[in-house]
């Protein structure tokens, strides 16, 4: 009996070591970025793994000033946050009706939304459309656009989840006298926390990380978010790797926090998506 236990433990240990070794492949480049962001310009030029002679925390303060990162952070929060709310509300509602009532029209609409996962975004014609609506170079314009780009994925994500919620629940609520919107927002929507958090995190990441869309739809540099500001920063300080890496860390820190908060739900969230 003891022998079996030991073998089991040994196997587990091997598995742990193997996994840890694999995770080094992910962590080493990230360690490399962190360590080089704390060096002087001269040290960072060698692009090595060695520790800096002294930690240059001031790099971060300098980058925040030079890249106007506080404003950029506010912009990113506004754009990513606002657009996520829009696509979660509209996407979950649409997906709900499409999944609960499978008429021919609704099945067609589902495919129609699905094509959005594949179709190329055309920035010239999109800019033209926004101009037509007088939304070019405005926060509402870019928020609506980011929100729209997230809709196809959310319709797809929620669709499978609704299948898992028994219809008897709907019927009971209807008998209790719920209105359609009460039924959805008070009864159904709260049951979809994993899907909502998954959708929230993934779309937030998408909007935060997208640098092409703002390039075309926002002209004013004061409205650009963090990913675009790092791109401009890279153009101006192409040799200051320490500063570039510090900027990178500052850009990814907020999304890592959001990711960590939502991490617990992502596995169960994606589980629902793959059922569909």
């Amino acid at each position, binding site marked *: 009996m003891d022998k079996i236990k030991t073998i089991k433990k040994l196997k587990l240990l091997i598995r742990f070591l193997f996994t840890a070794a694999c995770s080094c492949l992910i962590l080493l480049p990230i360690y490399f970025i962190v360590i080089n962001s704390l060096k002087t310009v001269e040290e960072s030029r060698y692009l090595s793994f060695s520790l800096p002679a002294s930690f240059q925390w001031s790099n971060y303060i300098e980058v925040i000033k030079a890249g106007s990162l506080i404003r950029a952070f*506010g912009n990113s929060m506004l754009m990513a946050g606002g657009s996520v709310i829009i696509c979660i509300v509209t996407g979950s509602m649409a997906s709900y009706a499409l999944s609960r009532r499978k008429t021919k029209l609704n099945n067609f609409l589902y495919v129609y939304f699905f094509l959005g996962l594949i179709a190329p975004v055309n920035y010239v014609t999109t800019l033209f459309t926004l*101009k037509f609506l007088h939304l070019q170079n405005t926060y509402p314009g870019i928020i609506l656009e980011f929100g729209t780009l997230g809709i196809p994925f959310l319709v797809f994500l929620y669709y499978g989840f609704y299948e898992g919620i028994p219809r008897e629940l709907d019927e009971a609520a209807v008998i209790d006298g719920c209105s359609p919107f009460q039924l959805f927002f008070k009864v159904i929507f709260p049951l979809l926390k994993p899907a909502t958090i998954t959708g929230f995190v993934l779309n937030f990441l998408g909007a935060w990380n997208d640098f092409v869309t703002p390039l075309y739809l926002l002209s004013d540099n004061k409205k650009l978010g963090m990913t675009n500001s790092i791109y401009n920063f890279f*153009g101006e300080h192409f040799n200051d790797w320490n500063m570039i890496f510090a900027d990178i860390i500052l850009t990814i820190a907020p999304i890592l926090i959001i990711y960590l*908060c939502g991490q617990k739900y992502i596995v169960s969230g994606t589980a629902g998506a793959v059922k569909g």
Partner: protein
Amino acid sequence: MRNKKAAGIMAAAMALSMVTVLFNCEEVHAEGGKTITIAAGTGWVKDIDKELAAKYEEESGNKIEWQISPDDQYENVLGSKLAVGEGADIFYTRSGTTINKYQPEKYMMDLSEQEWVSRYVDWAKEGTSYDGKTMQFQTWSVDGWGILYNKAMFEEAGITEVPDSYESFKAACDKILAIGKTPIYDPGATQWHLGVWLGELTTQIESDNAGFYAGLNDNSQVFAGQEGLAKALDQLAEMEEAGYFGDDFMSNTWEDAVAKMASQDYAMCVTYTTFPAEVEAVNPELTQDSWGMFPIPLNDNKVFGTSAGGIGRCVNKDTEVSDAVYDYFEFLSRPENLTAYYDARLDLGPCSFTDIPGNVPAVYEDVVGNATGTGLAAEDGILYWDNTQVGNLIQAMFVGGSSAEDVLQGIDDIRQPSFGE
């Protein structure tokens, strides 16, 4: 519990940032005056531009709003914004033939009537003209690309004469190799820089038989079959094989050029004439006098190809604040502001206005002295020439095994569709 807390913090952060942003918007609207929007690539706008803009804002009460895009995205963004009618009031483009690329009749304001046009030096006036009209306000410099060399290293290697033919150039490279240095720093990973090599050599073809550029620009002339250029490309490939560019040639980037030349591991590099000032800033031992320059001697070239004056500011024909824009240009063209500008821009050479000399670098005199003549290089003389695309084709010659003739044919293939049917 923890999640609720996290969600609370998130919501608070978001609300806070939204308020900050909206507050900032308010601030902009609170001030009077007009707002001038300016679109440019990252590399074209320096601290001094922003300082002068701030000074102008203070003086006039108008507001300057920058729309800066990464250099590699700028042309794409500019083209689409103009097409949609969303162009900035002022947009930067290269001077010379590049002006033709943005439908000047449709998108650019004629600036010929402005006072400062009379103060332009000849090359600036010529480079900013389209169809006899002045289209740009330019505070840049005429400059060209030649082979910058480290004088002390040439002496150490026993090179007494400045190379003026391919043979003497090769001999010089061999001598540098013999003293254990790399002859040439060339950023093979930076596509546009490879394009510069060939773009300098078209100048020679034009000066040998005038009308070559005109033929290319009205699409009656092609690159395929140009023996001089094919020969130059073959020689370029031969130099790479001989190891004159070092081992990591194809990984070298232009961004490292200043540091590499300052390190004195390399004897030569294809640069513009103000480059020594940038090296001096890194390594004070190397002064302006440490360097000389000669035209790229491939295909025995002795002609120095120059730009049409660099980068200029166009005014959008649809602008609603033209008066403010003219006012801003008038401000920038004042001698004291030009002086401040050129003093800060060590990367620029002679001034585009007659008021002040600018910075005429020693190597500029040197390269002109070593050349038999000057002329426009391809980038500003040949319509639809794109250094990046040409460099991509030359890279293919180094890594993909295509031939010199393939490169020339490739340039035709890239330019042809832009002329239409």
